[in-house]
């Protein structure tokens, strides 16, 4: 459990579905009922096909680092005790991108496979990532291939 204080999300509606899932150690993505594309952040409609039909599904937790930054300058007292910290933009195996911290002071690199974990506060979980280890590394590489094969909502535009 982190000694740091969290930044709490005050989530509403679809945001709350996502954050309730996180508290059960799940990252929930919406899967379009018509075109089957996965999406995050959540939305009432599929941006690729317009369908209002979707189901929440649990993300596998595999992904690769799409980009990252290591934050050295605290832009708010809430993160004064966090710096330096790495923020990742991760492409999940299902396609959508998710933002989360890299845990344990590991060194990030674009393309590196990561595995979902959680930043654990006394009464709150926040999605975060660890670099995938040897075994999971192979899973991570697999995840890259999966992401390329399954179009996401935003990739429909490419």
């Amino acid at each position: 459990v982190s000694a740091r204080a969290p930044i709490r999300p005050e989530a509403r509606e679809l945001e709350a579905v996502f954050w309730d899932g996180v508290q059960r150690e799940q990252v929930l993505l919406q899967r379009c009922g018509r075109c089957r594309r996965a999406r995050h952040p959540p939305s009432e409609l599929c941006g690729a096909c317009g369908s209002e039909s979707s189901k929440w599904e649990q993300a596998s937790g595999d992904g690769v680092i799409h980009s990252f930054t290591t934050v050295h300058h605290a832009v708010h007292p809430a993160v004064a005790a966090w710096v330096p910290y790495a923020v990742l933009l991760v492409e999940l195996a299902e396609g959508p991108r998710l933002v989360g911290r890299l845990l344990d002071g590991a060194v990030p690199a674009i393309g590196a496979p990561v595995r979902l974990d959680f930043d654990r506060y006394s009464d709150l979980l926040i999605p975060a990532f660890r670099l995938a280890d040897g075994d999971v590394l192979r899973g991570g590489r697999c995840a890259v291939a999966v992401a390329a094969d399954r179009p996401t909502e935003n990739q429909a535009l490419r």
Partner: protein
Amino acid sequence: MRAVIAGIGMTELSMDSGRSELALAVMAARAALADADIEPGSIDGLVTYSSDAVGIARLQRALGAGELRLFAEVPYGGSAACGTVALAAAAVDAGMARCVLCYRALNGRSGTRLGRAERHLSAEPSDGAFVCRGDGVPGGVFTAPAGLLAPVQVMALWAQRYAHIQRLDEERLSRALGSVAITQRRYAQTNPRAVTRGVPLSMDEYLGARMIASPLRLYDVCRETDGAAAILIARDGEGAGAGRAVRVQAAAQQLFAYSEPLPIYTPDITRLTSERAVDELFAAAAIPREAIDVALIYDATTIAPLLTLEDFGFVTRGGAEEFLASGQHGPGGRLPINPHGGLLSEGYVHGMNAVVEAVEQLRHEAHNQIAGAAHALVTARGASLILGAPA
């Protein structure tokens, strides 16, 4: 287009204006009216940024403007620097309004600081924990809990991805970014408006500065200042700003899908605008890229000029490093960029000061005048203008 920029106005830039944003807006607006030699009662349109603290009707009253035919607020941050002018020019061109004032006023240093996260987080009364809400940009519920809280951090994600795609190691990326920072700082030394005048910057100082959000260091990030700017758009041939009205040859807004709640979900985060938008802009202006004499690029951080040079085809994809290394953005270069010092070194009026600079360049009244400047490109994350010197 039949729209022209008939007048420009800008306040002093400072760390603490000691004035309300309304007072700053009125000062800049009056300066623009005086510049165009027209009366406040002639204004029939007001356009500003969604984030501006000065409401349109409030400025209308304080300024003594007439009945309005057009009023609008443009969202999505700094792109409104060009978006406001584009909208005003389109309305004037279409005959919907005759004399439209675009404005931005902010106490960006002494008041709400856009580089910090106080505007996104609030303290809970019960235990003092900080709470984020909705889709604050950045700092919404899907990003703030991970500590992604400020624009510089988002742009750092763009920069890191760009370096990866172009296979630039940290040293080469830093030198390219640093070249933007130190060249613009050099321009600022001879610009009396610049808040960094008298404070030059060397590559060693740039590289030695502390990291803010890797790969972006202290001098990769723009200044925060108090001030206001105003741009007056009128119809060509109707007399406002007679003889030195700058022509709006083309104006466009551009927004990628999946830009919300934050521009990290677009398919390619290393593009600030699309090929389609750029092609249409030059086609509308009926000039080739080579005809652009000076570029004003929205430089909240140093990565933007690199991406913009490539997006607009001034260099090939990955060609920004060589362009910058050979000083083509500096005095006497192939394409001088931000010769006022930019947001990095002149100051931050949320990009509207770049439009002011473009107009001064085309009137040949700029402090760092580009000899014979006939066409200027102004661009802010997709929204863009091509301006032409007075006929």
